[in-house]
């Protein structure tokens, strides 16, 4: 387990140092969103990659977090930190409550049910105009602040978002190697076998679903305070699909894979700005071809490729 700690420390150093060569550039701003997307992707990966339960409604929890914080801080002038905690707890409670009926479903039915939750949430964001501002969005959300220090620049937001992300990553790494994490993987391999071995599969699935919703809601709160403006398009079905693509590309069941996926899929649209409408085609191709040819994702696929190529080369020499 020592190498895991070293890996995490190295990763922390990279995160700390990353903005230095970028100074205050535009890329720092992009990296803020990489941090938020990393949290979201990781939340989904805990559920999908470890417990093997799909959710196509992650954007709903992300949106509930963002709108919860946004509405409480603008309409009710609540302290943003208090709002963040309150909203995260409420979203977790909500996920826990719907988790029991939703996670009784399996496979395709589970996918459809979570998709349904996502679509209903998206419609609600659009229709509750009095609270959310409807399709035209909610503006004037305050930045987060501690005392007189306000997180109002890209670089400040970068360290804010990534300190949350690092905590989530550390917790995930610990959880994965715990009794709970092993139970989840047992459910992934065979739910019946896991139950026979004494794993409380039903409860554990709901617990990891709740955890994943909680992480998504936190990411949502951060997102709304970083952006200071939110609208329903940021929490639609496409976002759920984007998150799914991040997890699949990075590698199902790999913590660092989710971060790699989030990094690639957040940077890519920025790099491909000239072909902005092509990105949806590209996501489709990626999802299909990765699942067929590289089901382990990049994190496992690239080392495997290396191993396949390297011995062949040394054989020649």
């Amino acid at each position, binding site marked *: 387990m020592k190498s895991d700690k070293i890996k995490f420390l190295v990763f922390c150093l990279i995160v700390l140092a990353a903005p230095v060569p970028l100074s205050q550039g535009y890329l720092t701003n992009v990296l803020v969103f990489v941090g938020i997307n990393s949290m979201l992707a990781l939340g989904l990966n805990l559920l999908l990659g470890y417990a093997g339960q799909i959710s196509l409604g992650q954007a709903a929890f992300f949106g509930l977090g963002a709108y919860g914080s946004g509405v409480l801080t603008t309409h009710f002038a609540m302290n943003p930190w208090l709002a963040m905690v309150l909203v995260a707890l409420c979203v977790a409670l909500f996920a826990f409550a719907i988790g029991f009926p939703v996670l009784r479903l399996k496979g395709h039915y589970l996918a459809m049910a979570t998709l349904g939750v996502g679509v209903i949430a998206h419609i609600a964001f659009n229709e509750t105009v009095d609270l959310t501002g409807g399709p035209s969005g909610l503006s004037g959300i305050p930045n987060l602040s501690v005392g007189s220090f306000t997180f109002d620049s890209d670089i400040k937001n970068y360290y804010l978002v990534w300190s949350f992300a690092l905590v989530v990553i550390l917790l995930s790494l610990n959880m994965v190697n715990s009794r709970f994490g092993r139970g989840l993987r047992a459910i992934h391999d065979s739910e019946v076998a896991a139950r026979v071995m004494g794993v409380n599969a039903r409860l554990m699935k709901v617990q990891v679903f709740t955890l994943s919703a909680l992480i998504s809601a936190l990411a949502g709160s951060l997102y709304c305070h970083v952006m200071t403006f939110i609208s329903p398009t940021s929490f639609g079905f496409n976002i759920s699909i984007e998150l799914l693509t991040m997890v699949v590309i990075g590698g199902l069941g790999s913590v660092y894979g989710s971060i790699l996926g989030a990094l690639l899929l957040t940077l890519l649209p920025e790099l491909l700005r000239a072909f902005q409408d092509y990105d949806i085609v590209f996501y*489709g191709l990626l999802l299909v071809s990765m*699942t067929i040819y590289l089901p382990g994702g990049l994190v496992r696929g690239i080392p495997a490729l290396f191993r396949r190529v390297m011995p062949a080369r040394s054989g020649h020499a």
Partner: protein
Amino acid sequence: MELLNQITQFVISGLATGAIYALIGLSFAIIFNSTGIINFAQGEFVMLGGVLTIFSINALKLPLVFAVVAAVAGTTLVGVAFERLAIRPLKDATPLALIIITIGTSILIRGVVMLLWGKDTQVLAPFSGNEPLHIAGATLLPQHLWIFGVTILVIVGSRLFFHHTISGKAMRACSFNRRAANLVGISVGRMVLFSFIISAALGSLAGVIIAPLTMTAYDVGIMLGLKGFCAAIMGGMGSGFATVFGGLILGMLESLGAGLISSGYKDAIAFLILLLILFIRPQGLFKKGETERV
């Protein structure tokens, strides 16, 4: 009296959209029964039906009948390509992999259509004019009659096909037990391909006949597909009358809810019904529960 007329009106338009959901639901059930896959790209077949018809009429200057045939044939080709390129290479794929693949295919199809024909809504003229018919105080559009007619034809046709032809019976055999079907000499692989062909054709036909009422665009497939799935779930994923009833009930509830409660929440109503059915009666409205097989 005013309210009663309104309700009649909502029921009629609800039945028409419900018939569409029924057709899409049937197309879901056909693939599910032969492969065990819920095809998330099903809605894109529906969208392709409408969009390709409009393209054939406007760009290729085909008359309506040929345009419809061309659109259905085109969509069917897409279905075949999908089965050959994305489904067949994965022999023992997990449900998770199949979900991700069909979702990927659906956004791929949507994206390509968006690049080719843009994001604007496209209009298809009604098949026989827009002169409304007045029946019992409610208005009925000629397009509604087309929808009811085509739906009835399709239901009768599929009943005949699945119960009275060798291919149809072979496909049903596969849905009951693939291994046993294979042992008596049915080529399961071919039946899977057939099911994609029939399903794509059916889905695109639904897309063609609904297009004059609702207009169409590259992104209409998501909603239509999901509601068709809802109909199929209500019918217990069978390919018979239960799914048709499911579609009609869904269409009516949605139309009444939109008319009497709030039109903004129209789509939410369908999904609430979907969730309720999945939670309470996942085996469908009309079936008895089955024991879970491991």
